[in-house]
C-alpha cells in the first residue's frame, strides 16, 4: 500500500512539527535579555516600553502567548519581525527562493559528482583510479564545508581572482525580480546575462556546500556498488556478454542506490543546514544569512519563523528520501 504508507509518514511528521514549534517557543522565551529594550534603546519611557510589549503580546502569560502563537501559526501568520518591523512570513518568503536555488544547485553537484566518482571508482576497482578517489574522498570528508568555503575564497577569490566571492549577482547588472527565483525567472524571461551571473556566483558556495554530501555519498555508493558487483546476477550479466560498465550502470547501480540513499539522507539535511554559514561567508542574501542577523539582533519572531521553516524543509526532505527509497526498493512498498 504505497499511498497509505506515504500518507502515514506525512501524518507522523505533524507531531514532530508540533514538537519543534513547542520547543522553540519555550526555548526562546527563557532567553535572557529583553528584545523590547534592545529595540527601543535607552531613550524610551516606561510607557513606550509597556505599549510595545502589549503590541507584540509580550505582556501576557506564557501559556496565553503560546495559544495565541499556535492560532496565528495555523492561519499562516508568523508575526512581525522586531528588528526589521516587517511581516515574518513575507521576509521568509522573500529569502527562501534564494536559499532553495542554492541548495538545489548544490544538491545536483553533489549527486552528479558523487555518483560519477562512485562509478569510476567501482569500474577501476583495486586499481589506481580507485585509490586516488579514496584519498580524495578522505581529504574532503576530513575538512568541514566552512573551511572549504574559506579556502575557495582565498585561492580562487584572492590568489587567483577568477571567481566572484560576494553576493548573488553582479552589482552592475540591473534586474527587477518578481519571484526572487533569479535563476529560473531570468532564464524564462530571456535575460541570460543575469542567469549567467547568478550561476557564476553560485559556483563557489554551491561547491563548498556540495563537497561533504558528495564525498559521503560517493563513499557509500562505491562500497555498495562493489558489493553488488560480486553478486551472482552481476556475474551472470557479465557472462552474457555485457561489459563491466554496462553491468554497473544497468544492473548494479539501481540496487546499490538503496543503501546509499538511506545513509546519505541525513547528510542532505546537513547540506541544508550548512547554507546558514555558507551564505554568511559568501554574503549570499538567503534565509541562513537572515537567520544569523536575527540571532544577533535577538529578533524572536524572526528566529522562530526561520527555525519552523527549516523544520518543515527537513521533514519534507526526509519524506522525499523515504519516497525515493520506496520507489527504488519494491520490498518497502508493502510496509
Amino acid at each position: 500500500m504505497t499511498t497509505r504508507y506515504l500518507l502515514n509518514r506525512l501524518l507522523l511528521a505533524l507531531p514532530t512539527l508540533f514538537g519543534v514549534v513547542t520547543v522553540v517557543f519555550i526555548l526562546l522565551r527563557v532567553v535572557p535579555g529583553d528584545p523590547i529594550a534592545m529595540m527601543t534603546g535607552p531613550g524610551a519611557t516606561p510607557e513606550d516600553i509597556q505599549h510595545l510589549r502589549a503590541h507584540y503580546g509580550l505582556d501576557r502569560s506564557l501559556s496565553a502567548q503560546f495559544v495565541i502563537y499556535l492560532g496565528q501559526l495555523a492561519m499562516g501568520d508568523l508575526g512581525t519581525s522586531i528588528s526589521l518591523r516587517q511581516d515574518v512570513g513575507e521576509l521568509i518568503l522573500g529569502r527562501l527562493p534564494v536559499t532553495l536555488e542554492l541548495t538545489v544547485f548544490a544538491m545536483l553537484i553533489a549527486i552528479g559528482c558523487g555518483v560519477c566518482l562512485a562509478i569510476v571508482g567501482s569500474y577501476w576497482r583495486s586499481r589506481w583510479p580507485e585509490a586516488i578517489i579514496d584519498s580524495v574522498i578522505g581529504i574532503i570528508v576530513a575538512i568541514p564545508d566552512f573551511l572549504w568555503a574559506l579556502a575557495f575564497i582565498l585561492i580562487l577569490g584572492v590568489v587567483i581572482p577568477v571567481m566572484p566571492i560576494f553576493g548573488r549577482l553582479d552589482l552592475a547588472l540591473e534586474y527587477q525580480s518578481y519571484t526572487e527565483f533569479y535563476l529560473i525567472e531570468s532564464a524564462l524571461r530571456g535575460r541570460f546575462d543575469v542567469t549567467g551571473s547568478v550561476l557564476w556566483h553560485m559556483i563557489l558556495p554551491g561547491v563548498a556546500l556540495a563537497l561533504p554530501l558528495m564525498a559521503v555519498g560517493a563513499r557509500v555508493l562505491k562500497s555498495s556498488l562493489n558489493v553488488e558487483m560480486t553478486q551472482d546476477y552481476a556475474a551472470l550479466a557479465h557472462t552474457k556478454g555485457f561489459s563491466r560498465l554496462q553491468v554497473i550502470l544497468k544492473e548494479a547501480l539501481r540496487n546499490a542506490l538503496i543503501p546509499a540513499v538511506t545513509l546519505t539522507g541525513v547528510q542532505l539535511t546537513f547540506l541544508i543546514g550548512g547554507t546558514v554559514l555558507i551564505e554568511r561567508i559568501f554574503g549570499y542574501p538567503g534565509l541562513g544569512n537572515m537567520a544569523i542577523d536575527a540571532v544577533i539582533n535577538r529578533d524572536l519572531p524572526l528566529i522562530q519563523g526561520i527555525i519552523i521553516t527549516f523544520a518543515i524543509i527537513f521533514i519534507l526532505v526526509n519524506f522525499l528520501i523515504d519516497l525515493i527509497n520506496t520507489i527504488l526498493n519494491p520490498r518497502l512498498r508493502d510496509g
Partner: protein
Amino acid sequence: MVNVRPDPSFVYRICHEPRAVFGLFVLCVLTVIALTAPWLAPHDPLEQDLLYSFLPPTWYPQGEGSYLLGTDNLGRDIISRTVYGTRIALVVAVVAASLACLLGTVLGLLAGYFGGKVDLVISRVVDIWMSFPAVLLSIVLVAVIGAGLHAVIIAIVIIDWTRFCRVVRAETMVQKELDYVASGVTIGLSRIQLLLNEILPNLVPLLIVLLSMEMGIAIVVETILSFVGLSVASDTPSWGNLIQEGRQYIHQVPWLLGLPVFCLIFSVVGLNALGDGLKQVIDPVSRR
C-alpha cells in the same frame, strides 16, 4: 576478565601508525603554542597601532620587520593574535569535548545496560538530536544562552553528547552479554559496580578515539560561532574573529585570512588523523 590494559606493544603500534603520529604531533604543537603564547607572540595581541594598520607581511616592500605576517585593520600583529587564538581553540576543544564525552557516556551506559524504556527514551532523543544540522542548532542554542565562551562550550556539549552516547550504548550492549559481566553478577557485584568498574574500562579506548575527533569538531564549532559574532567578544583574539576580520577586509589584507584558516585546517586534519590512527591501533577488527 578481558584485559583492558594496553599491552606492551601499544606504544610501538602507535609509533608505527603514521596518522596517529601526525595527530599527536599536531596536538603537541597546539598545546605548546597555547602554553607558551606570552613568550611566543612577538607583540601584545590587543595592542593597537593605527599608524601600522594593514601592514603586509615583512617580505613586501612596505612590510615592517617586527610584524612578520603584517597587521590587521587596527594595526594589531596577526601572528600574535593567531598565537593567542590557539588558547581559546584548545580550551574549547578540551573542555567541551570532555564534558560532551562525560554526558554522552553516562547516558549511553544507562541506555545500553538497562535497555527497555530507558533505552527507548534516550535512543529516541539521540535520533531526533542527530537529525538536526549541528550548525543551525548551535546558533539557536547560543541565541538562547547568550553569546560568550561558556555559551559556546555549553552548546557544543548539548549538541555533541549524542556522538558519544550512540557509540557507548551500542558497545555497552555488546559488552553486557560477555562472560565477564555474567561472572560479575554471579559474585554479587551491584549494577553500578558492574557498569563503572567492569564495563566502563573496556570502553576507554573507544572513548579516546571519539574524544580526539570531538576535539577537532569543537574547535571548528567555536571558530564558526566566533565568525558569526556569537562567541567571545570581537576584540578577543580567536581564530573565528580573525577569520571574520579577514573576510571583511579580504581585498585589503588577504593574509589576515590565510593564517587562521591554515591553523584551523592543520588542527582539524591533525585531530581527525589522530582519531583515525588510534582507531586503527585500538580496534582489533580494523587491525585485521
